[in-house]
């Protein structure tokens, strides 16, 4: 326990922070195949941008396909980012940012434009 008023010094390196590994997808675009991209697709599925694949074992591939491109476009619109359809540095920086676990979009969320 710390006594109030005492400066708390904790130094934790953020290189092993969750999602830090997504940096390797920088500038990936439709048609490319990058090892591990299925993990990024799970991230998009978790926050409502991609539906679970309806293939036999419901698993994502490492291919940047058209479905994933439209998920990236949806994400860029939701976050007010330039809509490029690519994993540019602004988009990746936002993806790797710490965030709330509630889904952004999808069947449970009804967006209201004001």
């Amino acid at each position, binding site marked *: 326990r710390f006594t109030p008023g005492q*400066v708390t010094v904790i130094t934790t390196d953020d290189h*092993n922070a*969750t*999602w830090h590994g997504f940096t390797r997808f920088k500038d990936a675009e439709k048609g490319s195949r990058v090892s591990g991209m299925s993990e990024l697709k799970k991230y998009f599925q978790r926050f409502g941008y991609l539906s679970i694949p309806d293939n036999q074992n419901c698993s994502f591939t490492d291919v940047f396909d058209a479905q994933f491109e439209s998920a990236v476009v949806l994400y860029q619109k939701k*976050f007010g980012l330039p809509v490029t359809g690519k994993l540019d540095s602004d988009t990746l920086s936002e993806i790797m940012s*710490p965030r*709330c676990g*509630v889904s952004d979009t999808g069947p449970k*969320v009804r967006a209201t434009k*004001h």
Partner: protein
Amino acid sequence: FAYFYGSPRWERGSSMTLTYAFSPWNMIDYISLPEIRGVFRRSFSKWASVIPVNFTEIEDYGSANIKIGFFRGDHGDGEPFDGVLGVLAHAFSPENGRFHLDEAETWAVDIGKVKSKVAVDLESVATHEIGHILGLAHSSVKEAVMYPSLRPRSRKADLKLDDVQGIQALYGSNPNFRYSSLLESENSSNKA
């Protein structure tokens, strides 16, 4: 601003009081409980100042409308936490009331006093998750408290116009609320 499907909200009639309590089992100990209570009292009061809803802390966790706790990894609600940064917290839409924070984060009440590069401002996250508890989903407005992401060592704890418009459309306005005060604070923070 955005809502959850069906725009769920708490239904208590005109003068609504919601109770909240902290888990007796799942808390952090490197920030004192009085300090944590102070953070949440401030966060709840930001929302209470714009809508006709009051929030009262109670001791009995089991009977509270809003149940707050710090959990690590898989904690039984199908949304496991993921360690340092990544997902910081989540909360459920009305009238569920569950409010979970990731115990693995380096939570801070005063960011200036913590040296960690991955320190997360507790008041900013608390204010955001209370928005979910009340029925707001994520907003696309970067300045809004209900924008989904929060950079480490950053603070975003004051409600913006988008947050206020969204929540007042659900609950109506607090009779003492003045837009002018909100616009003044927004202008000054924009200038800064």
